[in-house]
């Protein structure tokens, strides 16, 4: 059984979703790569920010 940490699961999810978003939502290869990286950073970044917000709410 595969048991990743929460952060590893977030990174894997962001990676696969960003690849599909990049390829399907843009026309040129350059725009695809840029949009894929943009989505990946937003996915992981928002997860980290929300995690810290929940951490301080829970204290």
């Amino acid at each position, binding site marked *: *059984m595969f048991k*990743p940490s929460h952060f590893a699961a977030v990174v894997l*999810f962001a990676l696969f979703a960003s690849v599909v978003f990049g*390829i399907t939502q843009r*026309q040129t290869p350059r725009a695809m790569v840029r949009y894929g990286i943009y989505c990946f950073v937003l996915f992981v970044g928002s997860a980290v920010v929300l995690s810290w917000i929940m951490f301080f709410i829970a204290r």
Partner: protein
Amino acid sequence: MRYSQKGMSTEPNKIADAPKESQQGFVYLPLIAGWLVPGAGHFLLRKWGRGALLAASILCMFVLGLAMQGKLYGGAHDILDLLSMAGDLGNGLLYIVSRVLGLGADQVQITTADWGSRFIVVSGLLNVIAAVDAHNLRTGRKS
């Protein structure tokens, strides 16, 4: 008013410029093939690189979901189950074969299994997006 932005996948002027030959034949074949087998729609259109990346991403997400003991939704007891099953069905043959082989957990009992279930649902939704993209390529809405 039509919204369009430079670099977006479906610019209106691209629709008008679509070549005539791209409108001939069964235009829904890449859509159906892409739904049944991840990346197959792009392979039919000879977009090898895009198809391989899409297939690898969707397949990895689905397999990791199963490896995390994710649940394959087979029946709908409430609205959330129904939506999850709709997402799972987006995986096409992957879902059907996995159900026949009895893969996936019967019940979600640990946190990792819940993440796995979401991985499977989202891989199905991503596969639908990829299949629609293949259809757009086929009809000339996207190049």
